[in-house]
């Protein structure tokens, strides 16, 4: 299945990724090959999909859920030791101007 450059750019935007024009051109054929491969499933099932259950629904036996128990949180300093933190918060550039 052919995919347009515009569609690829929209996907990149949704994925929060950036590609140069050159990268995008190189990416296109492999991506199309992969989609074509995934299209194999359409030979098995066509048409209406409204009755299909989501995968999550068959994974969990909800009767087994445990009670919620309040526990102590992880210490802020430990979490922030990894990243850009300031005064107990995650730090980013100013968002509200």
């Amino acid at each position, binding site marked *: 299945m052919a995919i347009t450059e515009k569609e*690829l750019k929209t*996907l*990149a935007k*949704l*994925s*929060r*990724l*950036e*590609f140069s024009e050159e990268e995008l051109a190189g*990416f296109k054929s*492999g*991506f199309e*090959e*992969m*989609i074509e*491969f*995934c*299209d*194999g*499933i*359409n*030979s*098995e*099932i066509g048409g209406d*999909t409204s009755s*299909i*259950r*989501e*995968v*999550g629904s*068959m*994974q*969990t036996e909800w009767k*087994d*859920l*445990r009670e919620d128990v309040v526990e102590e949180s*992880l210490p802020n300093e*430990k*979490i922030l*030791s*990894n*990243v*850009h933190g300031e005064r107990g918060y*995650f730090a*980013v*550039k100013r*968002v509200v101007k």
Partner: protein
Amino acid sequence: MSGRIKTLSDMLKKGEISSAELTRRYISRIEKINPLLNAYVLKTFDEAIRGAEYADALIKQGKAGALTGIPFALKDNICTDGIETTCCSHMLEGFKPYYDATVWQKLKSVGAVLLGKTNMDEFAMGSSSETSYYGAPKNPVNLSKVTGGSSGGSAAAVKADIAAYSLGSDTGGSVRQPASFCGAVGFKPTYGAVSRYGLIAYASSLDQIGPLADSVEDAAIIYDAIRGQDRRDSTSCPTADGVTKLDGDVKGLKIGVPEEFFSEGVDEEVKKSIEAAICLYERAGAKIKKVKFPAMKVALSVYYILCCAEASSNLGRYDGIRYGFRAKDYGDIDEMIVKTRTLGFGKEVKRRIMLGTYVLSSGYYDAYYKKACLLRERITAEFDEIFKDCDVLLTPVAPTTAFDIGGRSASSVQAYLADVCTVPVNIARLPAISLPCAVTKEGLPVGLQIIGRRFDDGRVLSSAYFFEREACVKVPLCKEVQL
């Protein structure tokens, strides 16, 4: 004859060697051999020495268990409190988790000794470990070949005995296929049998932690130590009580052979090796039956749709704010996130995120993701039907033996085909093991896969134990690694 873990454990308990001494021997082997293999991406020798001291104290108090004092390795996507865990990605370079994965916590509490973190495909996305940010590990059987993946470093470390055993993760074959390529044993337990808490998520409905070991006996010992329900992983389930029994009795065992696993693309030598293994079971009194698994033709497509969809969602959390890498030059916060992700992720990871976003996007969600979910149920139902009349299935692990490093593009449908025999197991959440069943003319190991019913992990291990005991397959290391 006892396996590697039991032999070492007996020596430790008898006082023939201390854990500290054993650990020093392993450290010295790692220093000599790892530069050839690139199996470890992080060495944790201070932690190992601390662990060995704790283990020696346990042994002295008569409290030693099967894994006390034995040095091992963890795949680099299993969280270790205060110890760098990167998923072999630039994105998580320098990331030190603030909690332990349940499996590591369990092993630490019985005095297991952590030697380091092992190489893998970036975020476990690949079948050769070549997408690692730290470069590909090499196969200790033949240094020009890939280790398989994604748990390639774990398999190589165990085979070269620079770790007595290791843990990997298996989303579509990532424990079994590298075990097969390196001539080790790799076991993927039933989905839910082992807690995934602290395993950095790739595709949560398929991911499963499992052992890589030198023998089936070792794999069973490790499995017993890490399994069981965990309140921190709601998908984990209680498992059978007691120690997994390995009687290796296959008389009357009903074995199914799904012919679709032997079709197009499977090497003749691989096919013949598996057929010879099946004959061995038959001679010992097992009942062999050919079975049909028609859903095989869509399994790989279903797998890639589901895993990429889940990956695109799971990897959404890497925004440069809470973990690891953050890009430097940016205008506002949105630009920072985009730049961080663009520079932090490798090519294959980006490709899978894009594919996952595509199959989940409005307009394509029904055509791909929803249909894949339905087919997942069909695949599961077909296996369930087969298992009404079969106890286990025997198949190849991979269509080929280990291929040349750089020989296949990691990002191609051809590379994805390496997973064709392993992914159906993850889709249906079944247990399966890979163990060496032959060595080709080129000197490369061939893996036999044994698949079982959900939560019938003990039978899978016991059936594998039979083959290992009867066939005594030896896979020699290359001479550079023989020390």
